C-alpha cells in the first residue's frame, strides 16, 4: 500500500526517507514541489497528486509535509489518516513533531516507522504497544542504557498485540491511581455583519488521562446524554452499551487518549458567549480607512471569558495601522497582513475597544471587501452545551482511584463576518 515516506521541511528539503517496498527515488518529490509552487500556501497543496508512475498523498502537519508514495489503488483517507497517526506518534514520543526533533531522534523514528508499517500495511499503530516495543527516549533511560548496555527495544511481543484490547499494556502499576477527564467543547460559528448567527455548532471532545493499575473497567455516565447528536469513540468504548444505555463503558488505554468526540447540533440553540461590534471602512479616495471594534460578553453563564484574541487577515492593500486599544495589546504584521488583538480576560464592566485608522498603499484601489474576524477564547469550568458528567465507576480492580472531571469551552472556528 504505502511504498515510501518522505518528510519535507518548509524550505523543500527531504530530510528523511523511508521505503517499505522497493526504493523509490527522491525525484518523485519533484512533482510535489511543482504542485507546491502552484498552490498559494502550504494548505492549498492538493493532498493527492497523480504522477506518471506513482500517486503522492501528502499531509501538512506542524510545518512539515509528510509525503507518501503509493503505486496502486488505495483508499486516500487510509493513507492520510495513517500519516496523521505517524505525526501524532512523533508528538507522543518526542513531545513535538518538528524537524529538529525528528532529526535528533532519527534512529528511534526509523525504528518506529519500521514497526508501524510492514510492506506498506499498518502493523502496530497503538501507542501503548509501540511504547513497549520501542521505548520513548528519556534522559534517565539514555543514561541507564549507556551504563548497562541495555537497549531501547523490547524483546518480547507486547501482549496487547495479541489480545482483544490491543490498546492497553499489561501489568500496569501505579502507586497513585488516578483518572482525569477533560470535557472540552469548541464553538464553531459564523456570525454575520449584523450580529446574527449564520450557523453555530458545538464540537466536543473528552480527553482522558488514566493512570490506573491492572485492568480497570470504567463506566462513565452523563446527566444529559441526549444532548449528544453524533459521537465517535476510541476503539476501547463498547458501542453496544452506548447504544442501549447511553453510558461509556471501556477498558482504558494507559495514559493520555481521546475517549470520545461528539457533536451538538445546530438545532439546539448554541449560546454564543461574546458579541463583537465592529465597523471597518475604507475611504472612497483609497488612501486609508477606519477600524472600530468593541467586544463584550453575551451568554457566558456567569463565567469569565479568558484568552480572548481577535485575528484579522487584512486586505493586501493595508500598509500599516494606527490603533489604540483600551485593553490588551495589538500587533500588525505588514508582511502577512495579519492584525492580532490580544485582549486577555474580558471585563464586563469596561468593554475593550480597539479603534484607529488604517493606511493603504498609495494608489491602490479601495479594497472590495471587509476582512472577517477570527475569534479565539476560553471559558474555564463551563461546557457550553450544558453536558455534565454524572459519575465514573470502576469495576475489575479493588483500589479506589482518584477521579476528576474538568470542563472547558473554547472558540473553534469562530468567525465574524464584516
Amino acid at each position, binding site marked *: 500500500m504505502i511504498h515510501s515516506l518522505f518528510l519535507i521541511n518548509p524550505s523543500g528539503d527531504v*530530510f528523511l526517507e523511508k521505503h517499505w517496498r522497493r526504493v523509490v527515488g527522491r525525484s518523485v518529490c519533484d512533482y510535489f514541489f511543482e504542485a507546491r509552487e502552484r498552490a498559494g500556501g502550504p494548505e492549498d497543496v492538493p493532498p493527492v497528486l497523480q504522477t506518471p508512475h506513482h500517486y503522492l498523498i501528502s499531509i501538512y502537519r506542524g510545518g512539515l509535509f509528510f509525503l507518501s508514495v*503509493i503505486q496502486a489503488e488505495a483508499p486516500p483517507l487510509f493513507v492520510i489518516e495513517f500519516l496523521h497517526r505517524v505525526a501524532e506518534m512523533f508528538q507522543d514520543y518526542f513531545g513535538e513533531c518538528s524537524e529538529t526533533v525528528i532529526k535528533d531522534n532519527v534512529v528511534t523514528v*526509523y525504528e518506529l516507522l519500521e514497526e508501524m508499517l510492514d510492506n506498506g500495511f499498518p502493523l502496530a499503530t497503538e501507542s501503548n504497544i509501540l511504547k513497549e516495543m520501542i521505548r520513548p527516549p528519556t534522559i534517565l533511560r*539514555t543514561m541507564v542504557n549507556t551504563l548497562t548496555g541495555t537497549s531501547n527495544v523490547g524483546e518480547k511481543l507486547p501482549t496487547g498485540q495479541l489480545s482483544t484490547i490491543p490498546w492497553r499494556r499489561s501489568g500496569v502499576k501505579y502507586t497513585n491511581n488516578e483518572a482525569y477527564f477533560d470535557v472540552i467543547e469548541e464553538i464553531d460559528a459564523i456570525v454575520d455583519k449584523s450580529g446574527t448567527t449564520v450557523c453555530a455548532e458545538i464540537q466536543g471532545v473528552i480527553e482522558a488521562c488514566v493512570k490506573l493499575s491492572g485492568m480497570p473497567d470504567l463506566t462513565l455516565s452523563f446527566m444529559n446524554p441526549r444532548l449528544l447528536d453524533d459521537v465517535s469513540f476510541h476503539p476501547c468504548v463498547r458501542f453496544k452499551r452506548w447504544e442501549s444505555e447511553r453510558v461509556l463503558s471501556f477498558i482504558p488505554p494507559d495514559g493520555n487518549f481521546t475517549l470520545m468526540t461528539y457533536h451538538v447540533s445546530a438545532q439546539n440553540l448554541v449560546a454564543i458567549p461574546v458579541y463583537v461590534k465592529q465597523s471597518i471602512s475604507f475611504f472612497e479616495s483609497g488612501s486609508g480607512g477606519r477600524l472600530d471594534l468593541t467586544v463584550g460578553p453575551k451568554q457566558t453563564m456567569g463565567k469569565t471569558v479568558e484568552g480572548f484574541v481577535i485575528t484579522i487577515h487584512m486586505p493586501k492593500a493595508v500598509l500599516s495601522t494606527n490603533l489604540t486599544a483600551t485593553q490588551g495589546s495589538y500587533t500588525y504584521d505588514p508582511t502577512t497582513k495579519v492584525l492580532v488583538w490580544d485582549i486577555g480576560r474580558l471585563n464586563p464592566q469596561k468593554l475593550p475597544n480597539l479603534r484607529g485608522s488604517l493606511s493603504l498603499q498609495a494608489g491602490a484601489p479601495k479594497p472590495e471587501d471587509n476582512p472577517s474576524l477570527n475569534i479565539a477564547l476560553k471559558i474555564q469550568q463551563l461546557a457550553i452545551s450544558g453536558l455534565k458528567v454524572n459519575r465514573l465507576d470502576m469495576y475489575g480492580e479493588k483500589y479506589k482511584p482518584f477521579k476528576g472531571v474538568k470542563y472547558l469551552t473554547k472558540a473553534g472556528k469562530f468567525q465574524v463576518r464584516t
Partner: protein
Amino acid sequence: MSASSAFSEEKGGGGSSSVEPEFGHDPASGGIFSSDYKRHDDLKEMLDSNKDSLKLEAMKRIVAMIARGKNTSDLFPAVVKNVACKNIEVKKLVYVYLVRYAEEQQDLALLSISTFQRGLKDPNQLIRASALRVLSSIRVTIIVPIMMLAIKEAASDMSPYVRKTAAHAIPKLYSLDPEQKDQLIEVIEKLLADKTTLVAGSVVMAFEEVCPERIDLIHKNYRKLCNLLIDVEEWGQVVIINMLTRYARTQFLNPNINESLLEEGGAEKTFYGSDDEDEEEDDEEEDKEKKEEAAALAKRKPYVMDPDHRLLLRNTKPLLQSRNAAVVMAVAQLYFHLAPKAEVGVIAKALVRLLRSHSEVQYVVLQNVATMTIKRRGMFEPYLKSFYIRSTDPTQIKVLKLEVLTNLANETNISTILREFQTYIKSMDKDFVAATIQAIGRCATNIGEVRDTCLNGLVQLLSNRDELVVAESVVVIKKLLQMQPEKHSDIIKHMAKLTDNIQVPMARASILWLIGEYCEHVPKIAPDVLRKMAKSFTNEEDIVKLQIINLAAKLYLTNSKQTKLLTQYVLNLAKYDQNYDIRDRARFIRQLIVPTDKCGALSKYAKKLFLALKPAPVLESPFKDRDHFQLGSLSHLLNTKAGGYQELPDWPQDAPDPSVRNVEVKESVPEWTKCSSREKRKEKKVEKPFYSDSEGESGPTESADSESDSASSSASASASASASEQSASGSESDESGERSDSEEEDEEEEKKRKTKKKESIKAVQQSESEQSSDEEVRKVNRKVSKPPPRMASESESEEDEDSPSDSSQSESEDSESEAEVKKKRKITPPKAPAKPAKKEDKKEKKEMSLLDLDDFEPTPSPQVTPVGAFLSNSLVTDLEGLSLTDTVLSPATISPSSALKSYELLHRITGEGLWVEYCFSRQPFIHDPHMVAVQIQFTNSAAVEAKSLRLEEAKLQSGMRVKEFPEIEVLPAGESATVVMGIDFCDSTQAANLQLCTHTRKFFVSIQPPVGELMIPSFMTENEFKKEQGQLMGMNEITEKVKLVERCQNEHAIVQRVTAAANLSRVPCGSDKECRFAGRTVTSGSLVLVTVATKEDGPCQLTVNCEKMVIGTMLVKDILLALTQ
C-alpha cells in the same frame, strides 16, 4: 567534524544520544563528503569490534545516513556480519539496513539467510515474526522457494502474530515472483479461514493484492468476516469493508430495485442506470422471482433482503462511530453502494463529523460528499450549514464546499444559499469568487425561480472592479442568457458596452458571441460593436478573433446592408492572420456567406447554419456520474482509474446461490436440493436413516437465517422437543430438507426449525463430548470439507463463525437438547455400523426409492460418514455471535465395518496367532484433520492373551506423521479389538512403515493407502465445480475413455463405484449424462475433481482434475478399474 575525531569522541562520550543530535544537526554532514572512505572505515571498525555498544553506535549512524538518503551500500559486508548479533537493537537496525540494500547486493545478502531460517524456528514469536518479515522483504529472487516455504510454515504457526506476518509476506513474495500466485492463493485461502481478528485484516489485504478476482474464496468466510469486523484493528476494517462492498455487489440483489419504479425524480431514478434499464431489471427481477417460486427456493415478496446482506449492513453500522476517518469513509461508501435508500441517511452525520478533521481529510470527504449529493441530495440537506465556508478554509476546500452547496440547492433553500454566496463573492480569494459565480450560474439553471435574481446579481457584478470577477460573470451570464434571450436585450446591451473595458479574452469572446447570436435583439448596437472590433482585430487574442469573424458572418446574414463592408474587411484581415485556424475559418465563412457564381448549394442555407437555435448549455457538476467508481477510492478522487483498482460490479440480475456462504457441520449440496425437492417430498422416509443427511440443509438453513431474528424462542423450544423425537427414533426424522418451499408457510417454518434443530444437536454433542478447554464464549463451527488448519500446540482451540442467527439459536437450545445428546450417544453405536456399511444400505434404499431418487441417493453415504464423526463437535455460542472457539473432537464412535475393504496388516501365521487387519474408515481423523483415519482390527486367535499391543514408528517417509492409537493392554485369546489411528501420508501412496509391538516381539508392518483414501469429500455446487475445474486445466487434467461393463451402465452404479474407489462426494448436476465428484486431498487440501460423462452409445469419458498430477493419474487408474470390473 573529522572522521577520526568523531570516532574517538563517541568512544569517549560513549552515549549515543550525546552524539546523535550533533549528527542530526550537522548540515549535510561535511564529514561525509570530505572523507567518505575513512569515515566508513571507522564504521567498519566499530562494526567489527566485539562490543555491542560500539556496534549499536555504528548501526545508528548508518541508519541515520539511510534515513537521509545517503548511500551506504559499501558497508554491506561489514553490516551483514552482524545479522546474528545478540543485541536485539543492533539486530533490528541490521535488518533495516539489509532490507534497504539486499536487492543491490544479492550475493552477499544470501549470507544472512541461514540466520533468518534459524530465526523462523525461534521459540519467541516476535523473533519468528521479524525473521519472516525481513526474509520476505529481501528482494532476492533466488530465495523465492525459501520464502514460500517460510510463509507456508508461518501460516500455520501457533502465534497469530506470526500468521499475521505471514499474511503480510504474501504480497511481498507475489510482487517478487508472480508465478507463485497459485501457491500463494492456497496460503491465502488457509489464512482466510483463520479466526483471529489479528490476522483477518492482513490476509484480506493480501487477498486484495494477489487475487482480488477470487471472490469465491470469500464465500465461506463471509459471515465470519462480518462478525469479526468490529474487533479487527482499524486498518484491517477499512480493507475488509472495501472488499466486502465488492463482494456484496456480486452476491446480493439491488435493494433499491423496487423503489426505482415508484420514484418521482428522474435523477434519483437513474441511480443505478437509466430508467429503462431499471424497469427492465425489474421485469427480469419479477420473472426471476417467478422462477424462483417455481423452484420453490423461497417465497419471496418483491424484494427480500438476503440475511447476509443485512448482516453486513448491521455489523458495519457501529463503525460509523470510529475515530478513524478511513473507517468511517469505508462504511459510508458501503452504505452508499449497498444499503436500501431509506437507510443510507445514517452516514451523513458521520461524514459531516469528519469535516472537523484535518484539511486533507476534509478534502477527501468533501469530494465524496459532492458525489453523493448528486444522487442523494436529501441525505445532506439537514447539514447544509455545515458546508458554509469560512474565510480561513484553504481554497480547495472552499471550492469543494461550494460544489456541495450547489448540489444541495433546491427551491426551498436557495434563498439562504444565495445569501451565503453573496458574502462569498466579496472574498479576497479570487479563485474562490470565480467558483462562486459559476456556482450561482448553476443554481440559476437548475432552479427556474431564481434565474432572474441570479442574473441580476451577476449583472451587478459586471461593474465589479476586479476584472476576473467580471470576466467570470460574463461567461456565466452568456450561458444563462441562452435560455431566454428575448427577455434580456438590455443585459446584452449592457454587456456590449463592456467590450471597451474588459480585457479577459474569454469574456470578450463570450460577449461577442452573445451579440452575434442575438443580433436581432440589439440591431443598432451590433454593427457598432463589429466596427470597434474590426478596428482592434489585429491585437486580439485568437479566441476573440474567431468570435469576431463569427459576429461578422452573422451580421452579414441578417443586416448585410450595414455590415457588408465591415465583414469584408474583417475577413480580409483574417485571411492574412498568423494563426491558420483563423485563416481557415475566414476562408470557410467567406465561401458560405458571400454569394459568388461558383458557390455551391450550401450558401443558401448559410442562415440556417449560422443562426440555428442553439440549445442552452447544461451546467453540470463535475462530480456527476463519478459514483461509478467506488466511493472513497483513489480512482474516485482522481476520476481516473488508478492501477490495481477493482471495478465495483453491477448488481446481479439474479442473486447467486446464497448457500455458498453457509459454513456448517454438515455440508450441503444446495442445487441438488433445489432440483430434487419436489420429488423427494414423497420420499422422505427413504432419507430418514441419514438424519444428518446433508441434502436440503443449505436451502432451509439459509431461509432460517433470514428469519432468524424473529424465528425466536418458540421455534427453539419446539425444535428441541422435536429434536428428542428425532434422535430417539434414530431413523425417523426429518421431513425437513425434502419439503418443497412451495408449501404453506408454517410448513416451511417447521422445516426451518428442524434444520436448526439438527444443527443444534450436533453442536451440543460436540460440546458435550468435548467439554474441553475453552470458556471463551465464542461460537464454533466446523467445516467438513476443509478442516481448518490446526496447530497442535495452539491449545487446539479454534474459532469459527457462523451466522449469528445460527449461533443464538443453538445456544438457546443448548440446555434443552443436552438430554437428547445423551440419548443420541447411546443410539449412535448401534447406528454407526450401519453407516459404513453403505453398500447394503444403498441397496435397501434403492429398493425403496421409487422415482428418480437414485440420482442422489448414493451420494449421501460418503457424505454421511464424515458427518457422523463430526457429531462430536461442540458448538458453543454466545448471543453476540461475534466469534467462536472450537474444541477438539473427542474420539468419535468407531465402528467395525464389514463393508469397507480390509487389508491385512499382519497375517495370523506370521503374527503367531495375532491377526491384524486394517481398513480406511473414511471418517476424518479427529486429532488432526490432515491425517487419514485408519481403522485397525486386532484378532487374537492364539491360545494365550496378547499384551501391550502398540504401534511404533519405524521408517517413515519424510513428512509423514503418525498418530498412534492408545496401547491395548490386554487382548484375551479369541477376542478382537478395534482401534483407530491417524496417518498423514503427505498425499502420497507411499506405504507407512511401522512397527507393531506386542509384549513379546515386534513385527514390521506397512500400511499402504489406495489413492482414493487420500482424500476427503468436498462439497460444492455445480457452479463452483465448473469454476474450479476451469482452473485445473491443462497438465492438471487427465481424461480417459472407459468402456463401461454391462452392470455399470446406469448412473447409480457409476456413482457407487466411484465413491467406493475414492472418498469423494457427489456434486449435484443438472444433466443426467454426467456424474461429478469432488474432494480434497487430506494433507494439502488440493482439490480433486472427477467427472464421468456417459454417452448414449460408445465409451464414457472419465476426467480427473487435480493439481497433484501423481494423485490424478493414480486416481484415474483406480476409477477405471472400478468402472470396468
